[in-house]
């Protein structure tokens, strides 16, 4: 039984909309197939847990309050609240000195990182091919959306491209290519943090081909973020012969 047929049966059964014959056939199947029984239970529990807007609202309030709320022990240690004013002033003064020093000393540093990023970053060329991406009729309905995302990317409308690729990537389990392009779009917009979130996940669990590309762009993303240590660590992991190996070696020397 394919997943869509199975899900359909489970949903009809849970909603109580099966005909008498359908129901008795399904119950017969359930009595002999323990994995189907387990799947039915999971679907029921998931629906029970996630239904209703209020519980999600409560969860987000809980997260918010939990972030802010300090235990009496934390307050005593003076992590934020209850900090002696005089001590705070002297720290503020010290910070100010540091900030001024940073701006006096750092332009050369920033410039060199910016240059390194600018001379190495170019958005990966668009190689997505709708025919190979959407090989079966099941995903045919995605074609217009894929088309739109590709056009936005080619037109350098990266904000739109990122949005479209990210939304496509939630629609299919085979979403690595969409995610790579979403990350490159973010990087093109200067959003290194957003790019890093996507790329870190890809280098963790994507197939090897995507890891190679992602590793290079992740290195660049950290460079854009001016985190040289993380940038180096990513670039060092690019193996000889892999995508952008030579460029990575050159960059490591400059860093």
């Amino acid at each position, binding site marked *: 039984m394919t*997943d869509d047929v199975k*899900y359909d049966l489970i949903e009809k059964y849970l909603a109580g909309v099966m005909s008498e014959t359908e129901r008795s056939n399904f119950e017969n199947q359930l009595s002999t197939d323990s994995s189907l029984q387990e799947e039915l239970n999971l679907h029921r529990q*998931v629906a029970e847990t*996630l239904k209703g807007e209020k*519980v999600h609202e409560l969860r987000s309030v809980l997260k918010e309050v*939990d972030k*802010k709320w300090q*235990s009496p*022990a934390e307050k005593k240690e003076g992590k934020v609240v209850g900090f002696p004013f005089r001590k705070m002033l002297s720290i503020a003064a010290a910070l100010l000195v540091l900030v001024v020093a940073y701006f006096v000393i750092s332009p050369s540093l920033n410039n060199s990182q910016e240059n390194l990023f600018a001379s190495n970053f170019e958005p990966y060329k668009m190689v997505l091919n709708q025919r190979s991406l959407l090989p079966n009729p099941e995903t045919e309905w995605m074609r217009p959306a894929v088309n739109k995302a590709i056009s936005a990317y080619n037109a350098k409308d990266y904000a739109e491209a990122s949005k479209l690729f990210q939304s496509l990537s939630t629609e299919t*389990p085979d979403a690595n290519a969409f995610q790579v392009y979403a990350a490159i779009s973010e990087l093109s917009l200067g959003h290194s943090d957003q790019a890093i979130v996507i790329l870190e996940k890809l280098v963790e669990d994507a197939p090897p081909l995507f890891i190679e590309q992602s590793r290079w762009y992740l290195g660049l993303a950290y460079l854009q973020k001016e985190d040289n240590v993380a940038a180096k660590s990513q670039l060092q992991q690019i193996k000889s012969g892999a995508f952008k190996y030579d460029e990575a070696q050159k960059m490591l020397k400059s860093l």
Partner: protein
Amino acid sequence: MKMIHASNTQDQQLLEGILNADNQAIEAIYSLALPAVISWVKENNGSESDARDIFQEALIALFRKVESGEFKLTCTLKSFLRIMCRNLWLSRLRNKQNQASSLDGIETVDLDADLESRLEQSEKEQLFFKHFDLLGENCRKIMQWFFEKVPLKQIAEKLDTSESYIKKRKFICKEKLVKAIQNDERFEELR
């Protein structure tokens, strides 16, 4: 109409606050009950972060209990939450077998059976929430409406698209969610 009975006005208001996901009420509940929970969990092989996690789970279980209909609080809210958290933490420790020896002499306090079973399910619920939060925003919306039994045609209207598109997306989103849960290593342990 939900019926809530508490022995004092403050607790009554705080319970209503949970039901309405009211920020100020939740903050007040944190200050009222969490410090004691943190101390107790720390004395029993846990950390402050463990205490905060189970406190949130207890509040969600309590929310569901109150939401399900009539709820009567027979002691103060502070004590009630302490008992819930205590039971939750003890069951967590018992599940980690290596901790069992340190539990000699500490017993769970009986709560009503319905609430007890909600607490038992709470770790699994957290797993469902975790993977639900990882879905795209559109998927989350569709799933939430679908679980609420909103007809697909109406979901399609809300999102300004066709019913057949929503049907396909609903399947893809649900498959993604169910598979992510099934592939989570905690899922096997919680079955």
